[in-house]
């Protein structure tokens, strides 16, 4: 499980690009790719190693304001954990 104080950043093998055909962001890595929905793209764009998980949750909470904070927290942490499991993000201490 990713720590709230961890500052995730994309692993060197990963690159993010906008896809003109689908108007979505794609996360690309060896032999594979993942199409990101709006929230996922927002999260990934904050994975720069500068922002802690807590900060990412706060920022997304502000952006998706009427949504309950717990739902945002849940979505951010479960997505970041999924990325970490596939070694697509690394965490700065």
């Amino acid at each position: 499980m990713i720590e709230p104080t961890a500052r995730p950043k994309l692993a060197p093998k990963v690159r993010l690009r906008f896809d003109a055909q689908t108007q979505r962001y794609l996360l690309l890595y060896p032999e594979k790719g993942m199409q990101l929905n709006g929230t996922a793209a927002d999260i990934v764009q904050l994975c720069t190693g500068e922002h802690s998980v807590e900060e990412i949750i706060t920022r997304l909470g502000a952006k998706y304001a009427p949504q309950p904070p717990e739902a945002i927290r849940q979505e951010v942490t479960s997505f970041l954990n999924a990325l970490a499991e596939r070694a697509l993000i690394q965490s700065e201490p």
Partner: protein
Amino acid sequence: MSTPAVNRPYTLVAELTYKCPLRCVYCSNPLDYGRHDATLSTEEWLRVLRDAEALGVVQLNLTGGEPLLRPDLEPLVAEAERLQLYTNLITSGIPLTRERLARLRDLGLDNVQISIQDVTAAGAERIAGRKSFERKLQVARWVKELSLPLTLNVVLHRENLDHCGEIVALAEKLSADRLELANTQYLGWALLNRESLLPTREQLARAREIAAAARARLTGKMEILFVTPDYYGDRPKACMDGWGRRFIVVSPDGLVLPCHLAHTLPGLEWESVKERALAEIWERGDALNHFRGEEWMQEPCRSCDRRTIDFGGCRCQAYHLTGDAAATDPACALSPRHALIEAAREQTAPAAAAARKSVALKYRHAPQPRNSVRPRHRSSARDR
């Protein structure tokens, strides 16, 4: 025949040359690769990259043969970077220098995939057909020193399948980001050597367990892929995710193919990017459309629930084993020709293996060059 729906391709497999310093006994290049020596120019490859990206391609595999033998790899990587393609260099590592690798990294290379044949020099070089092992390890270390992501690819077979634990340890020692444990696909040179390479079911089961344990242990650190051989599955693989769906392969001489070996199938006229735009060939080429959709299927595929999952398996395997490219892949237990696969499996049993005389490995080699330089492959409108 109605025109089947054409999918968006995601990956371009650019086979830049069939030339290679290695002579691997399971090489996936066609047996007659020497005939496809009319290579594309730099300009033509640059156009292929641009046209592929416009079609929707986001992944680029630079492969061969040995792609480093192209002196113009640098402008191709630079163009791929401009097009935001995820660029993976699939290499033996042999002709690489640290300086060239650094240059390719600076130009935007995203990942380096190095093949390792076994965990000892003797084992590896017996398969590769030349001295190469120490060099590969050196190149793998450079990749990590230069902060590039490293994939190790190990093709598995009878002679190295029992070394899976050591292979994982080697990948860890080299700090590989991804390890591909890919059982041999028995086509091309591997089919010639099948008797020597096909493992036993027990070997395979042990290796699979080792890979699964390593994957669990290394989750989040190293991605481990274990590709099972279809000779030991009940159902065929969705070869290339289906014919002409997600992958475009362009051969060194510019043929637009759905896989590495489709130009070994008879009766299909493959078209070259030298004569027609990539998008047109992809969408309207007769050969590509031939095995798209389901109309070509025979029973048992035609009425099978899995036809949209495995697409009838591999057309090349169907042809090279049964003589009919439209047949159900004989790897499928439902295929009327499945006995061909069962017979090959039986040959791996200890009794059969002991009774059999030791068979010499057949190394990849080009036919002796002919004096004629005329391209012999029927590939284009020019020949019609």
